């Protein structure tokens, strides 16, 4: 069985469509992030990990009535509590969140109050506290900084590696593509939130997913670049655009297969992984689609555009055929 035996698509000829597509999604992401920023003070919906606060996950024996819970917490004097049904309805789970508390010495009070209010209203055995997260503002800030730094360093590390193995322009093109993917994926969280899908928040595990998608997108780009490097060595008379087109077509079968299979595993994570992994797997589902797209539609055209800019209007492959691999 084979998917593509010999395709001959002129990918670079479609670069303006790609550019338009990428721009639309990037701009949509940026706009929804700005809107989110204006509304809440942060560009994306942040989980309790980053913004601080209290989050209590409660499982009830009977189907919970969120209105009753709201009454119970309000009666106990807890303000600003957000109460949402969580997971599939048959699990009877409710997520109760309180915004960041500024007094760190009394970090626990919110959680205690929620527990007491529920006990008073529903009785001791009617529910089980499944998960409690209380994050003070200091730690939230630290984690935010840590996550941002980790992402940036990670990109830098890959850039350096590609510079060493290929050439600087390959590294830059790959990093730009990754940046593009990250922007659109993170933007989709803001976009979903502004369309009223609640509970998709950037948590620590989502950061792990974003770093994974960076790695994945890079992986995809490298496969194409590797083929370009190889083909450049073989045929120096062909124009770079043709070499790039041919390389993409030669690796297309692999690209579609791998992306398809990885998509399959990530999809099973999204379907079977439960609510704890939902944000994580969502980021990966989006990330794999966009990461596959960007290696063909963003990274490769950038190489050609750079070469054309450097060579004026000359169409010959002036991009030197990178170092011969010694490994």
């Amino acid at each position: 069985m084979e998917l593509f035996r010999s395709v001959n698509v002129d990918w670079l000829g479609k670069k303006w469509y790609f550019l338009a597509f990428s721009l639309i999604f990037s701009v949509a992401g940026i706009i929804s992030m700005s809107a989110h920023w204006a509304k809440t003070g942060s560009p994306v919906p942040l989980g309790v990990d980053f913004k601080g606060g209290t989050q209590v996950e409660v499982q009830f024996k009977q189907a919970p009535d969120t209105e009753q819970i709201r009454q119970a917490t309000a009666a106990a004097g807890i303000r600003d509590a957000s109460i949402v049904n969580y997971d599939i309805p048959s699990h009877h789970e409710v997520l109760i969140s309180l915004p960041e508390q500024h007094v760190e010495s009394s970090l626990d009070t919110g959680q205690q109050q929620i527990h007491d209010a529920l006990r008073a209203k529903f009785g001791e055995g009617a529910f089980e506290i499944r998960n409690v997260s209380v994050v003070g503002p200091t730690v939230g800030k630290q984690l935010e900084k840590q996550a941002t730094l980790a992402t940036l360093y990670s990109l830098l590390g890959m850039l350096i590696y590609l510079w060493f193995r290929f050439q600087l322009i390959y590294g830059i093109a790959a990093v730009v593509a990754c940046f593009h993917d990250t922007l659109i994926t993170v933007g989709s969280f803001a976009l979903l939130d502004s369309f009223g899908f609640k509970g998709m928040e950037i948590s620590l595990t989502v950061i792990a997913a974003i770093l994974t998608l960076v790695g994945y997108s890079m992986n995809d780009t490298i496969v194409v670049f590797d083929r370009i490097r190889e083909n450049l060595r073989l045929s120096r008379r062909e124009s770079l655009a043709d070499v790039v087109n041919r390389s993409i077509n030669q690796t297309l079968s692999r690209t579609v297969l791998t992306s398809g299979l990885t998509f399959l595993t990530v999809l099973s994570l999204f379907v079977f992984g439960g609510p704890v992994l939902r944000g994580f797997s969502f980021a990966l589902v989006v990330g794999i689609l966009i990461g596959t797209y960007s290696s063909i539609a963003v990274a490769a055209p950038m190489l050609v555009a750079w070469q054309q800019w450097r060579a004026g209007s000359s169409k010959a492959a002036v991009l030197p055929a990178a170092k011969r691999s010694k490994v």
Partner: protein
Amino acid sequence: MKKNLKQKIVIIIGVLVVFLYGAFFGFDAPRLGGGQPLLNQLTQHIHLGLDLQGGVHLILQVQVKEAVSTETDNTVARIEQDLKTAKLTFSQVTKPDATNHPETMHIEGINPTQSNAVRSLIDGKYSNEYDISGGGGDNSLTVTMKPNIEKALDDKTVQNTIEVIRDRVDSLGVSEPIIQQYGLGDNQILVELPGISDLDRVKNIISTTARLSIHAVVGGPYPDEQAALSSVGGNLPSDQELVHGSGSMATGSDVDSVYVLQRIAIVAGTDFRSADPGTDSNTGQRTVHFTLTNEAGDKFYEYTSANVGHSMAVVLGGRVKEVANIESAIRDSGEIRGSFSTDEVAILSKMLRTGALPASLNYLEDRTVGASLGADSIKQGVTAAIVGVLLVMIFMLVYYKGSGINADLALFLNLVILLGFMGFSGATLTLPGIAGVILTIGMGVDSNVLIFERIREEMRAGKAPSAAVDQGFAHAWTTILDTHVTTIVSAAILFLFGSGPVKGFAVTLTFGLAANLFTAVYVSRVIFDTHVNNLKTGEAVSI
């Protein structure tokens, strides 16, 4: 038979055996036939993170300023003593901003004619640890702890706190607690206690400072702070403090009462060598018997012999527990009789034995994961992983036919090696860690696809099976190496800068990719070569 092929197969079987052993037994000797099912062995040697087995996760901040304050309190006492011994005139040694800047002291009211003598005395004895400035016209001298000394003291305080918490956590019987410095400096400590869900009890045991000290009593008991203040003329001298009493022993019948005490303790927390709970044989009252260190014992003897007839107060956790009259000189042991409950005595003596916290703690973050949620998470995570793997395996068989078996074998071996790594290294498997496993599978499949597609290309170009396999691997290898190294680079950075669950993800991803380089390239190659060797002339590779 191709050169070395037998040797390679032996290597692969060897690796398989070693990692299978690691997955089931770690570095322990195997205990087979002990009635323990093999699956239990497996789950015992793969450490599960808090998100998978439930437990308590805390981030604490050590209030290091308190330790600095205690240190400078001692220095204040020593400076006063030195100046008195040298018969130099001064009015007092103060800490002008004890709360925010406990590192700064003022020597005030120096006789102008002696200012040089004072300066050289302080310079000579304290300049190693303190910066000394002033000595100008205002008859005062400022003594400030050097920043590097303060930093070292902060670090020591955090280290001591970790030691103390570790001792205390031992009493909870947690099997694999994590207690370590955390974060980007800022004197934070991470505590993770798997299998524990009673947060209140944990916090109680961890954050009881248990700081015990004995102070000279200036006056008291007074009924309230107002009365206590007016007894010292309305203004509390900087070397004295107001401390509330608690319980009946300390105050007779008064429940709330206030004492005026010398701020600097005669005997402080670190001076105690041991403490045991006991009962007074005459009164049946609960007591705590203590022993002092030799040095503190000498100091205590000196003080008590000079102050027979005076009172001293035992202060615990900021409250006067007992006031005793000094009847005779005491050297190094004594008894505290307070209004203690049985629990209190047990905890107190344990705390005194394990040592007091050098400073109090703030909670910055706490998380409790219920055991049932952990069990659900692992079920979901593992289900997702198994479903994902099975789907991929079936697809590979359908799409690549005979070579699909090859890919599936490599994938299976990859998982075995990954589990073995986890068993050997004692690394923790978290929920994102399971996700890391799933991604490893994705990369593993990618490597196989890259190789297989190359082999197909070569075969389309008309190469013979063995040459096609050769060329396919040779071409795919650089690509595989590049993709793996970049991903490992990002996983390593994640490991360095991430924390908790993210770290778990980086660990399985790194292990998985390393294993994948071996299985997808080396093992897969050997299987191919064996297959090609057995092909009859003219027969094609099933791919």
